C-alpha cells in the first residue's frame, strides 16, 4: 500500500488544549489517511487521550481545528461526531452495565434514529436490528455472551464490547483508546487480528497504545507525542530507531532500547 497517495480523512491543524497552565495538547497537526492503522504513542501524560477526546468531541479545543472528511467537526457534540462515523472506545471501559451485551450493541445501531421521532415509535428489538447486532458480536467474538448482563463481564471481554459498540455506528474511522491494556498475551494477539480484519473491511483506525510491541507490530504509521507535542512521525521501524523517541521513553541511556 502507498499511504502517500491515499486520501486524508481526518486532519488536525495546530490543535491545542490547555488545562489552566498545562498545555496538554500543544499545536498538534497531523493527518489520518484512508485505510491505514495509525498509532498514537507516547509516555504517560503525553496528551494521547486528550487528542482522542478532542477528536470525539468530549473536549473542546482551546485552539486549532479538526476536519473529518473535509468538514470541520471541532465544536460538535460527541453524539453528532459519532453519527458522522467516528466510533471510539474508552480506556476506562464504560459498559451499559445493566443492559445485556446485545443491547449494548443495539444502542449503537440506533444512532441515526435518535434524532428523529421514529425513536419514540419504533421498537428496538426488531429482527433486523438484532441480526445486525449479533453479526457484530460474532466479529468481535462475543456471540456466546449476547444475553449476559454487560456488568458481569471480565475486563478482556469488556474491551471487546467497547469495540463492538463502536462498530455498531458503522464507523469510517475507529478510535481505539488502549484497547490492549489489561489483556493477556493471547488476548492481545486476538485483538491485533481483529483490528487488522476491520482495516481490511475498509475501516480506518487510529489507536492510542501503551503496549509498544503491539503498536509496532500492528501500525502502518506511528506518531509519537511527548508533553503535548509531536516528537516524531513515521513507519514503526524508523520510530524505533529514532534517538529522540528513545530518549523520551527511556531517558538518556538509549542502550536499553535494543532489548
Amino acid at each position: 500500500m502507498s499511504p502517500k497517495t491515499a486520501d486524508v480523512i481526518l486532519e488536525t491543524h495546530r490543535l491545542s488544549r490547555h488545562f489552566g497552565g498545562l498545555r496538554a495538547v500543544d499545536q498538534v497537526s497531523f493527518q489520518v489517511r484512508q485505510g491505514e492503522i495509525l498509532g498514537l504513542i507516547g509516555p504517560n501524560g503525553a496528551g494521547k487521550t486528550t487528542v482522542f477526546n478532542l477528536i470525539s468531541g468530549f473536549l473542546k479545543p482551546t485552539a486549532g481545528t479538526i476536519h473529518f472528511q473535509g468538514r470541520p467537526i471541532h465544536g460538535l457534540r460527541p453524539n453528532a461526531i459519532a453519527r458522522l462515523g467516528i466510533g471510539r472506545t474508552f480506556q476506562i471501559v464504560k459498559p451499559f452495565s445493566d443492559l445485556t451485551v446485545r443491547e449494548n450493541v443495539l444502542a449503537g445501531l440506533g444512532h441515526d434514529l435518535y434524532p428523529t421521532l421514529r425513536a419514540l415509535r419504533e421498537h428496538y428489538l426488531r429482527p433486523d436490528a438484532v441480526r445486525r447486532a449479533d453479526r457484530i458480536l460474532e466479529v468481535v467474538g462475543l456471540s456466546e455472551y449476547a444475553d449476559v448482563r454487560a456488568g458481569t463481564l471480565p475486563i478482556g471481554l469488556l474491551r471487546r464490547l467497547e469495540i463492538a459498540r463502536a462498530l455498531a455506528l458503522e464507523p469510517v474511522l475507529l478510535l481505539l483508546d488502549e484497547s490492549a491494556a489489561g489483556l493477556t498475551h493471547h488476548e492481545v494477539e486476538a485483538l491485533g487480528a481483529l483490528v487488522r480484519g476491520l482495516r481490511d473491511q475498509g475501516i480506518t483506525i487510529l489507536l492510542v497504545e501503551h503496549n509498544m510491541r503491539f503498536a509496532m507490530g500492528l501500525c502502518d504509521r506511528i506518531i509519537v507525542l511527548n508533553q503535548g507535542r509531536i516528537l516524531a512521525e513515521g513507519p514503526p521501524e524508523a520510530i524505533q530507531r529514532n534517538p529522540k523517541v528513545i530518549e523520551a521513553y527511556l531517558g538518556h541511556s538509549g542502550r536499553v532500547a535494543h532489548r
Partner: protein
Amino acid sequence: MGYLVSVMTFASIWAVLALSLNILTGYAGQVSLGHAAFFGIGAYTSALLAVKAGWSFWPAFVAAVLVTGICGALLGLPSLRVRHDFLVLATMGVNFVVVAVFKYVDFFGGALGIVGLQKPQIFGWTLRGWGFLALAVAYLLLTLWVSDYVRRTWAGLAFATVREDEDAAEAMGVSVPRFKIYAFAISAALAGGAGSLYAHFLGSIFPDHFAFVESIGIMSMVVFGGLGTLRGPVVGAFVLKILPEYLRVVGDYRYTLYGGVLVLMMLFQPQGILGDNSWLWKRLQALYARWRPGPQPRPTSRALSAANPGDDPAPASRSGRVNPGERTHESENS
C-alpha cells in the same frame, strides 16, 4: 364501601404518579424529588380551565396533560447542566417554587386554593364512586401501556444508556440533553393527567397538596416497589397509599412512613421489594416455576434484560441508580 372505592381511586392516581416518576428516574436515571410539582401543574391547569374558562373535564384533562408535558420539558432544561446530587437539589427547588407560585399568586387562588370543580360526565352520566374509580383505573392502564411501550422503543434504549453512562451514551450517537428532555416531558405529561383526575375527584385543590413531602411519598413508592420495573411502582403505590388509611397508627405518621421506607429500602433492598433481583421477587419466580408445568418460564422481568434475572448476582450499579453520590466519581474520572 364508598370509603374503599375512594381509597382505591387515590391509590390508582398515585400509581400513575409512581409510574411516571419511574420513567424519569427508573428508565432515564434522573433522580427527581420534585415530582409533585408536575402533579400540581396538571391539577391547577385542569382546575383553572374548568373554573375560570368553564371547560368540561375532558378537554381540561387533555390540556393538563399537554401543558404539564411542556412544563416538564422546560423545567427539565436546568437539569441539563447539573447531574446527580445537584439534580436532586434542583428538582426540590422547582417543587418549592411551583408551590409558592400557587400559594402567593392570586391568579392561582392563593392559599384558599380552587374550589367548586365538577365531576366528569360521560353521555350525561356523572362519574362518581365506582364510575370515577373506573376512570382512574383506565388512566392507570393507559400509563402502564405507555410505560411499557416507551421502554421497548429506541428512545427507551437511549434512556437506559443515559442512565448507565452519559459519556458512553453520547459516544453511541445519543444526544443526552434531548433524551433527558424527552424523559422529563413524558414523565410530567403523565403526572399532569393524574393531577387533573385528582382535582376533579376532590372538587377542590390547595397548594399544600403538591408540597415537597408529596414528592418524597411518590419516590418512596417507586423505590419500595422496585425502580425501573412496571409492577414495582404500582404495588408500591397501592401498599403505601392504602396502609395509612387502614392502620390508624401508620396514618398519623404517614410521612414518617414514607421517609422510613426510603431509608430502609436504600439500606437493605435498594432494588425494591419486587425488583428483578429482590429477595421476594426471586421467591415468587421460584414458586411460579414450580407451580407451572413444562419448560422454564420466560423471564417476566424488565424487557431490557433478556437474561434470566434470577441467575446473575445483583450488580452494584442497580443500587447506584437511586444513590446519586455513587455515580458522581464514576463519570468524573474520565
